[in-house]
């Protein structure tokens, strides 16, 4: 059970100090990550230039801005302007000296001594560019730290109305997040530019395939900053409402954040980042797989009808099953070795699912937020009617599927009732008749003869042998005694001996069978008329 002892204001401030330090460090490091992208882009354009020092300078300027912010804010307007001017003169001078010291062509003192002759050597291209970058870093860091200060707890905040205080803090936090995301977009863009071969823009410069780990690190730092600022906002709200907070909240917040971030990073690493098939190819594969499944089910359902049709003489043999569709050939990947095609397919499906899902989510979200505009365009009605049509279509398909299912089930039940449940009935078999040999055909027709006899009111008793049953039938059909004897004899030969019947014998048995069945029918009709 967690302790619910509330925190005093001083304890809250201690916890907040730790959060603030982390936030400031994150901001400085994020500025450094941005500068790495800028340096990589510049090095691609100016291949002779090496700008590794810029990252360190940016981090330093950012840290300086953050650390001096609280002191500067206490100054009035005029002293503040004076201070910033002095600050920038110092930075500019320091940067100039640093660049002079790095210049391999000349010595620092020689350069300094040339100054009185020509001041223009101060303002080289590299110097001005680096100064601009440092200025941007200084400005961004200033705006970050101003917003972070807004999120800090202050006893004076208790005098504010909660609604106003909450809004100010939320606005500050949203500003931080927006700034981070915008910078992130630029970083990604710069990163892509350093890796894409755009000769038309940059001339005959080869793509560097520069490392982009700084971009990922930037976003990791960003997420940590998001987490810390969110905690600050919540803590302020609880303090204002005098809501007791558990003492271990800060520690557990950090721990949960680290674990959560770890899981997200693992997922981001594992999920596919490229696709093997194009979207249309993938759709083609999915649709053709679906059609194959439907055809397979249809083939299964058509088996009984096929068998019935095959009983008709001169019926064709059963066709070979349809060829299964193959996956389209994998697009050759020069960099990667050819992996498992199934895995590639799964990866591609995942990738496109995410992409399409994102698009659909965005569209739905957009229409939900702009419901008024949508209604005025009557798109909502269109969507409703399309939705209605799709629902009706599905209902229709579902209905047809149910009808087919019921038909098949009733036929099956009927056959079971007729064949299995009737006493003495032989089991219903659906052979492919054309594949039966002559012996099997003779046996088949004898079994059908027994079914017909039972249906005509002359069932074979279980203890009766074929000869005994023939005597019984003789009494009903005395005119067909010879045919019956031949028919039964052929069956006995086929069933109980090693004799291999010939096709002529089986054809003759069929003729006999037809005669016997006709007579049975006539005998059945006469009995019915007599009754």
């Amino acid at each position: 059970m967690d302790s619910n002892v509330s925190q005093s204001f001083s304890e809250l401030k201690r916890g907040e100090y730790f959060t603030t330090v982390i936030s400031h460090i994150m901001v400085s490091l994020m500025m450094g990550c941005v500068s790495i992208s800028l340096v990589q882009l510049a090095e691609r354009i100016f291949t002779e230039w090496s700008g590794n020092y810029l990252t360190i300078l940016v981090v330093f300027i950012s840290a300086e801005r953050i650390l001096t912010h609280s002191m500067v804010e206490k100054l009035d307007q005029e002293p503040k302007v004076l201070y910033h001017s002095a600050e920038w003169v110092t930075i500019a001078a320091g940067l100039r000296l640093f660049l002079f010291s790095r210049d391999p062509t000349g010595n620092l003192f020689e350069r300094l001594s040339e100054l009185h002759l020509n001041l223009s050597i101060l303002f080289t291209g590299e110097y001005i560019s680096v100064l601009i970058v440092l200025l941007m870093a200084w400005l961004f860091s200033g705006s970050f730290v101003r917003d972070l200060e807004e999120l800090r707890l202050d006893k004076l905040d208790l005098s504010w109305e909660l609604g106003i205080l909450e809004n100010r803090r939320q606005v500050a936090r949203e500003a931080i997040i927006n700034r981070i995301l915008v910078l992130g977009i630029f970083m990604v863009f710069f990163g892509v530019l350093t890796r894409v071969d755009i000769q038309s823009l940059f001339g005959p410069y080869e793509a560097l395939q520069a490392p982009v780990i700084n971009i990922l690190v930037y976003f990791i730092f960003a997420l940590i900053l998001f987490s810390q600022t969110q905690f600050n906002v919540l803590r302020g709200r609880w303090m204002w409402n005098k809501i007791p907070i558990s003492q271990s909240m800060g520690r557990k917040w950090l721990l949960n954040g680290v674990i959560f971030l770890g899981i997200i990073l693992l997922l981001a690493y594992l999920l596919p980042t490229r696709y093997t098939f194009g979207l249309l190819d993938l759709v083609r594969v999915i649709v053709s797989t679906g059609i194959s499944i439907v055809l397979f089910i249809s083939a299964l359902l058509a088996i009984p009808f096929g068998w019935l049709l095959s009983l008709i003489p001169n019926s064709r043999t059963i066709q070979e099953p349809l060829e299964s569709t193959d996956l389209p050939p994998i697009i050759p990947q020069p960099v990667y070795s050819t992996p498992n095609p199934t895995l590639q397919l799964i990866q591609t499906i995942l990738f496109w699912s995410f992409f399409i899902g994102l698009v659909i989510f965005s569209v739905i979200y957009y229409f939900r937020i702009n419901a008024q505009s949508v209604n005025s365009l009557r798109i909502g009605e269109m969507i409703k009617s399309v939705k209605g049509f799709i629902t009706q279509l599905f209902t229709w398909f579902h209905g047809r599927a149910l009808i087919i299912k019921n038909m098949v089930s009733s036929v099956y039940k009927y056959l079971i009732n007729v064949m299995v449940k009737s006493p003495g009935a032989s089991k219903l078999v659906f052979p492919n008749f054309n594949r039966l040999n002559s012996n099997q055909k003779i046996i088949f027709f004898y079994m059908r003869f027994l079914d017909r006899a039972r249906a005509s009111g002359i069932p074979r008793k279980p203890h009766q042998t074929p000869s005994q049953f023939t005597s019984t039938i003789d009494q009903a059909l005395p005119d067909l005694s010879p045919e019956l004897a031949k028919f039964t004899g052929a069956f006995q030969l086929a069933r109980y001996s090693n004799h291999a019947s010939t096709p002529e014998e089986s054809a003759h048995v069929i003729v006999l069978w037809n005669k016997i069945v006709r007579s049975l029918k006539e005998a059945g009709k006469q009995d019915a008329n007599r009754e």
Partner: protein
Amino acid sequence: MAFRIAGEMTSTLLIFIIVISIIGSFTLDSFVFHVVYLIAGTFLIGRWWTNYSISSLRVTRSVNSHAFLGEKLFAQVTIENPTILPVPWVQVRESLPLEISSSKLIQRSFTLGPRSRVSVDYTLIPQKRGYYPLGPIQLSSGDLMGLSSEVERICPSSYLTVYPRILPLKSVRIPSRSPLGILRHHQPVYEDPSRPMGKREYSPGDSLRRIDWKSTAATSHLQVKLHEPSINIETVLVLNLDQDDYHHKSLYDASELAITITASLAHWITEKRQSVGLISNGLDTMGINHRIDPIQSRKGRTNLMQILEVLARITFGRDLSITALIRHYRPRLSWGNSLIVVTGHCGTELLDELYQAQKSGINIMLLLVGQIQAMKELERKADVLNIPVYHILDERDLEKWIAT
């Protein structure tokens, strides 16, 4: 039930993810998609985690559902996380009526580990009778990064019934003609053969059945057994809570006093192991159509608690007069029952109805509460009809009445 509070971050993030995805689609560079997965995954998983966590939380409130005035109640709200996922933060808010708690709002914020629980304890001291909702408990939570909106969940309230004040009555002369009870009575007509009191010498006129032969043999004089008289009280309390029957100046005080008197009488009668029932024209929030069902005259603590529970929740009614109520209920009363009417006003109609009831063998007692107009005239009429009337103006009068 959980619902989402509107947030603005979703649109900013969506724009970011879309732009980055477009860049990635054109360039097919894998690191871009890693970034998209990182940010989109944080948003989506955080959102899912929050929804799942808050809907999985088990919230229980442990507190007695009934209490007497001034009784200290210890309440505990336990929030349990049965899942393996921790809950980064939860804010609990429980609202309480001021009549039972010194603070209107109980609030806490904490974090919940996997399969852990947190308890929030507080004390209630009811100051006024009634039926009070405790809660509802509101839970709020959100994700670690604050990228998706916070989620709230509202758990249903439970209710606390605070019984009315019960004053200890020394003795109440409730008229009764039901013989063979357990209460001692002054009238010798109600001698109870199961309660022997002594013996005396035979007087002409004594029944031969009362002769004690053993003591006669011992004393050689005829001795007769003596028995203690006793009565049985079957009482129905009638509480009038028609708002129009109370003086507007003392509407609240007089009605509460009436309820207190009714509760105290019910308690006293039950303590004497007699039967007591209740009918009223007030309203009960838990009753069918908010009406109060008559409580049958029965003995025992269970019946008393049932009466007290109704008296705890009862409020003013307006559309049923006490006279009509008594007239409707009177056929169910049998000869010898006692009817104690507690009301803020007694008009001619009510007096007539009570007289009719008395004539049919029901014992009547009339308690008038609060300011009564033309009290003397009323007392005179009641005297003529032989209906005992007591007037209790306020709590001091009640204390005097209790003391006598």
